[in-house]
C-alpha cells in the first residue's frame, strides 16, 4: 500500500449500503463501489482512497494488521472479537441490540439448575453471564439461533435483535438487553499516527455527514 493511499475496509451487506450512501454524501464518486460486481477492492476516483469489502471479523483483522487503515464494522463484531485498534466514531446506523430471549412466559433465572444458552456470540454470552457470576452452558449455533429453545436444546438465546419480529414469530420474547449496537469507525493504531492529516480529514468529513 502506498503511503498516501487510504484504504477503508467495509462490512459486506447492510452496512455496506449505508456506508456507500455516506461516502456519496461526502462527495465521493461511489460508482466503482456500487457497480463493483465481483471485484473485492474498489477505487474511489480522484481521492487516493480504496474500499475493500469484507466479512465483519475480517474487517477487524485487516485493520488490526494495518493492511487497511480504517474499518466500518458493527459494535457486535467488536465486542465479540476484540482486538487492538482505535474506535473513533459511532456512525449511528445499523442500530440493533444484543438481548437475552426465552420462550414466551418462561422464567430464565429461577431454580438451581445450570442454564443452557444458544448463541452465535459465545464471548458476549460468556462475559455477560460472567459479570453476573453465573455459570451457563454455551452452545454455539451458526444459523437461526431461535431454533435452539424451540427444539429444547437451550433455555434461552443471546442474539442480535433489531425489531424483535423474528423472536415474536417464533414464540420467543426478549427478557433482558445486554448492549446497544451500531456501526463504528475503527482505525489502525499506527495509521492513525503515520497518516494523521489524511485520516483527520476523512474522519471529520464523515462526522459532518452523519
Amino acid at each position, binding site marked *: 500500500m502506498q503511503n498516501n493511499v487510504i484504504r477503508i475496509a467495509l462490512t459486506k451487506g447492510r452496512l455496506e449500503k449505508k456506508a456507500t450512501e455516506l461516502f456519496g454524501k461526502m462527495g465521493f464518486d461511489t460508482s466503482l463501489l456500487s457497480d463493483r460486481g465481483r471485484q473485492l477492492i474498489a477505487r474511489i476516483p480522484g481521492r487516493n482512497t480504496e474500499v475493500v469489502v469484507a466479512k465483519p471479523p475480517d474487517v477487524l483483522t485487516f485493520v488490526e494488521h494495518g493492511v487497511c487503515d480504517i474499518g466500518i464494522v458493527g459494535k457486535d463484531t467488536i465486542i465479540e472479537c476484540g482486538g487492538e485498534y482505535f*474506535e473513533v466514531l459511532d456512525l449511528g446506523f445499523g442500530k440493533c441490540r444484543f438481548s437475552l430471549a426465552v420462550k414466551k412466559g418462561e422464567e430464565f433465572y429461577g431454580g438451581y439448575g445450570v442454564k443452557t444458552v444458544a448463541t452465535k456470540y459465545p464471548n458476549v454470552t460468556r462475559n455477560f453471564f460472567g459479570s453476573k457470576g453465573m455459570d451457563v452452558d454455551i452452545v454455539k449455533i451458526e444459523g437461526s439461533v431461535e431454533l435452539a429453545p424451540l427444539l429444547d436444546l437451550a433455555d434461552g438465546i443471546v442474539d442480535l435483535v433489531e425489531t424483535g419480529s423474528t423472536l415474536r414469530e417464533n414464540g420467543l420474547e426478549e427478557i433482558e438487553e445486554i448492549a446497544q449496537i451500531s456501526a463504528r469507525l475503527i482505525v489502525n493504531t*499506527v495509521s492513525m499516527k*503515520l497518516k494523521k492529516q489524511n485520516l483527520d480529514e476523512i474522519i471529520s468529513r464523515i462526522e459532518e455527514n452523519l
Partner: protein
Amino acid sequence: MKKHNLITPEGTRDLLFEECKARRDIETKLMDLFKGEGYSEVITPSLEFYDVFNSFPQESMYKLTDAKGRLMVIRPDSTIPIIRLAETRLKDEPRPLKLCYNQTIYNVNPKDAGRDDETAQCGVEYINDENSMSGSDIKVLKLAAEAIKATNFDFRFEIGNGFFFEVLIKENRIEANDAEKIRQLVEEKNYPALSVMNIPDIFIELPKLFGGGEVFDKADKLFKSDNLKKCLNMFKKVYNELREKVAGENITIDLGFTSKRDYYEGILFNGYAAGCGKPILEGGNYKINNTSGIGFAVNVSAVARLSRGNYAK
C-alpha cells in the same frame, strides 16, 4: 494420535538464508549501537517461575510445570527478568546499571490471528535508584530514536506521558474502578464511549491530543492546574530536544498515552514504520518492585520482515 512432526507451532517459523541474514543484520546493528553507548549484554533464561510474571494476564503466557510441580512460564517479556537480576546478583553494583539484551519472548495470541507467538527483541534497560525525570531519560529516548533510525525505514518516533492521565484522574477524584474503565477507553481512543460517560470533558479531549508541536498549544488551553502545566512544559523541553538533535520532523507526541502495563509510569514512547500495523519499538519509564528505570525493545522480527519487503504493504 495425529502427529505434528512436519510443521512448526502456530505463531512460530523457521528462518532460512536471507530471512535469517535480515534478522541477524538488524540484531548486529542494534547491539553495536547499544554497546557503543556503554550498555552491557545479559542473557536471562527462557524459562522463569510463574511468580516472576504474576502481574501478566495468565492466558497470554505459555506455561508448564517443573519436576517439583511448580508453575513455570516461557518468558513473555525481558524487562521483568532483568529487574530480577538487578535486584539480586547486581544489587550491590553501582547505579545506574546499563544493560542490553538480544533475546526472544513468547506470547499466546488468539488462534489463527496471523501474529507472532515468538518475537525476537533487542532492547536496553537503564536502571537507576532515583525515580525522577532526569537527564538519563533523555539519553535513553535519544538512543531509542537512534535505534529506530538505524532500521532505515520511513519511521515515526512518538512520545507520551502517562502522568497527564494519572493527574487528571486524581484532580477529578475518580475512583479506581472507574479510572481503569476510562483508562482503557482513552487508550483505545474510543471517543463515542467516552462521550456518553458521565465524566469531565477533558477525558474526551485528552486522547485527541496527538500529533506535532501544535498539540502543546491545544493542551496548554485545556490543562488548568499548575501541576499539569509544569509537566507539560517539561515534556515540551524533551520534545524540542529530541526534535532538534535526533528525530527532526519524524517525532510526534500523544498526550493520551496511558500506562497499560502496570509497571510503566511516566514517559512512554513508540516507534512506527510504514508497512507495519504495530509499533516496531515500545518503551517507557517503569517502577517494578523497588527498582526504577527506563528501557525499550525493538521488535526485531517485524523489522527484519519489513526490510525484506515481506510484510503486507
